[in-house]
């Protein structure tokens, strides 16, 4: 952890802290050369294939997959906070319908933080209540934000017994997802649940280091995630793909874009210099879901684009990234592209909170230096 009372060490690093080992973490291991991601010792492929969001979020936050008793307690805790506070939902009535859904969701969270201040004191039990409340309120508030974009009222089903992923889809779509939809969506949450000390996690950690509460840390992470260089990239990647009519058009455009040396959204990752393990997990889900919704052509266009781009760029370590594939799960589910960042945020905030819980004990406030140039 970045704020630990470690001794001072000498390090060499580049602009933007490139290569700086900012601290230690026991949450996830990313091997960019081999394309491996594991969470607390469990390979992401195994988690996505066999585990629920409830199990994996427990693993991320509390360090181990839950046994039966822990799983039922954690599931019940998540269910308990599914209904968000009324005034937070009412905030939707005071913002324009055409505002960005992530910004609306952020606004509802900032309002919710005005309603439960006492419960966010640092001495509040951090192991259960606060992460559960943030995860479940977030999912329900985000669902309301997405509906508001279409002028639809928030839904308030009795869903304490539904799973986290199912409850979010139910509150968003107004119907229960089928098994295929649920599995694909849940897999997308699981593979995006944690990814080391990326910019958003660093923002969350910096906030927690000031003694602020977990909700404040999540809001800072969300800020970083909203940027087009980060979470907003999945919207850009899908919008690019959606403009390509068929496989031939995709290949043609790719060749032209590559010739122009244009940056192609949905490709390349700063850590993975090989196929992204999360892409390999999600592709079969996207394909099955698109086929089931009669959108198989869309998947073939994606494959054509990927083949063309990777043929040219894979020698330089550029492959399809996770931002390029998640939209192909969220689109057949009926989410608008502007809402694609939301499931990413709902998932990865679990990782931010885990970093905050790992950091908190006795950490130093994060305060690097700057060098003044000139006089």
């Amino acid at each position, binding site marked *: 952890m970045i704020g630990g009372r470690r*001794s001072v060490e000498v390090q060499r690093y580049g602009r933007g802290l490139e290569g700086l080992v900012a601290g230690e973490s026991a949450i996830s291991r990313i091997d960019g050369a081999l394309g491996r991601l594991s969470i607390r010792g469990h390979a992401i492929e195994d988690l996505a294939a066999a585990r629920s969001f409830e199990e994996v979020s427990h693993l991320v936050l509390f360090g181990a997959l839950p046994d039966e008793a822990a799983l039922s307690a954690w599931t019940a805790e998540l269910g308990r906070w599914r209904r968000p506070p009324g005034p937070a939902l009412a905030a939707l009535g005071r913002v324009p319908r055409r505002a960005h859904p992530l910004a609306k969701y952020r606004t509802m969270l900032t309002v919710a933080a005005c309603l439960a201040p006492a419960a966010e004191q640092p001495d509040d039990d951090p192991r259960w209540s606060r992460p559960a409340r943030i995860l479940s309120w977030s999912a329900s508030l985000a669902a309301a934000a997405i509906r508001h974009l279409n002028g639809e009222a928030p839904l308030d089903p009795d869903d304490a017994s539904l799973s986290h992923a199912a409850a979010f889809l139910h509150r968003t779509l107004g119907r229960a997802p089928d098994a295929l939809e649920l599995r694909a969506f849940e897999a997308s949450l699981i593979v995006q649940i944690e990814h080391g000390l990326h910019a958003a996690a660093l923002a969350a950690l910096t906030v927690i280091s000031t003694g602020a509460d977990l909700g404040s840390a999540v809001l800072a992470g969300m800020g970083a995630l909203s940027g087009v260089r980060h979470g907003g990239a999945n919207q850009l990647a899908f919008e690019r793909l959606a403009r390509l009519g068929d496989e031939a058009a995709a290949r043609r455009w790719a060749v032209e874009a590559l010739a122009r040396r244009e940056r192609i959204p949905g490709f390349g990752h700063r850590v993975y210099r090989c196929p992204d393990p999360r892409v390999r997990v999600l592709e079969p889900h996207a394909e099955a879901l698109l086929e089931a919704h009669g959108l198989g052509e869309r998947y073939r266009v994606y494959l054509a684009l990927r083949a063309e781009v990777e043929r040219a760029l894979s020698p330089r370590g550029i492959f399809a990234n996770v931002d390029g594939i998640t939209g192909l799960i969220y689109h057949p589910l009926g989410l608008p592209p502007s809402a694609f960042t939301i499931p990413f945020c709902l998932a990865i905030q679990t990782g931010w909170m885990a970093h905050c819980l790992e950091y908190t004990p006795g950490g130093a406030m994060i305060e690097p230096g700057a060098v003044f140039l000139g006089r």
Partner: protein
Amino acid sequence: MIARSMPTDPTIRTLSGSYPWQADHIDWPVTTEVGPGLGGVIACESRVSWLDPSAGLLMYRGVPVERLAGGVSFEEAAYLLITGLRPEDGPAACAAFARRLRSSRALPAGVIELVRALDPTVHPTRLLRAGVSALGCHELSVDDELSGAEHWRELRIVGQVAALVAEIACHRRGEPSPAFDEEESLARGMLRALGGDEPDAADVDLLDLLWVLYADHGLDAPSFTSMIVASCLADPYYNVVAGLSALRGPRLGGATERVLDQLLPVVPAGEAGARAWVRELLAGGGRLAGFGHRMYRMADPRAVVLRRELALAARRRGRPELFAVFRAVEEEASRLLAPRGVHVNINFYAAPLFHLLGAETPLLSSLYAVGRMAGLVARVHESLAEGRLFRPVSRYVGPAPEGER
């Protein structure tokens, strides 16, 4: 407190107080000591402000803050920080800049309704964060460019944050929303919202001074948070929500409020009583708010400026005992703490000054945030121009993945 060691290799820029924090250029990559909380790390270059903790020196764009103090309005200091130009070199441009900040104080009705629907006793920084977030929904639509680059250029957010804090101050007292005149300075408008119907010029100058001194201070946690968020190309409203989330942490903005919580009850005890109180507090291992700073190993230069201001303002306001008690506590605490490298910081004297200006204690962090907006915008402009992205890594210390070593 961080253990400090002297550098042995002159190329190693360190946590040590001898580090100049100033250079003509940096050759990346650099080699530095890395301490807890990224202490000693060089996160970036900046031309905005220069903090030399060993000399007790803070400069905005090369101008020592002591020289700015009392000489410029907050709008002028913001102009200096954000554009890098001296106000005296372009009075017309500076006046146009000030008008832009002042004219962005009209808030959308939905934002005011959202704030007014919340309980006025909620901590103002939380209300402010909700208000800024709602503003972002009104200012940017789903069809707009996601990075909000235009909004950074327009600087609207600086005036908007000032207007929201004024709105919250009125909401707390059950007063109607404040109206702002485009000609009226941000400081004067705020003083009216704090309850001064016809603020006198000396008070306006004082609030300007407080905001100028709080406008920028190296790369502290709120600035660093904002810079990370900006580096991902997020819009200004995400950025300020994130910065406020850090600023409201008890170790930062909350510290200003704690100064009043701790010291106002001591004022009736008089100088001698206050000295005895602080001796007892420190002997018992208690912490005195407004003392200690991560960077300075000497009195914070801003506190020195504000000590003088408190003497003047307390006399002017007919509250000389306020200054006498704060000064006595500072002297007594400095005698006991200076040998341990703990000195008075800006919050110690800023807090009673905000109090004299009519601010309720919980409003102090939010008032501080208004000043800080200038430095925040300046730093974001700088980092957007460079296209900087923060990307450190962490060392994995968890269990080995199954099937791997």
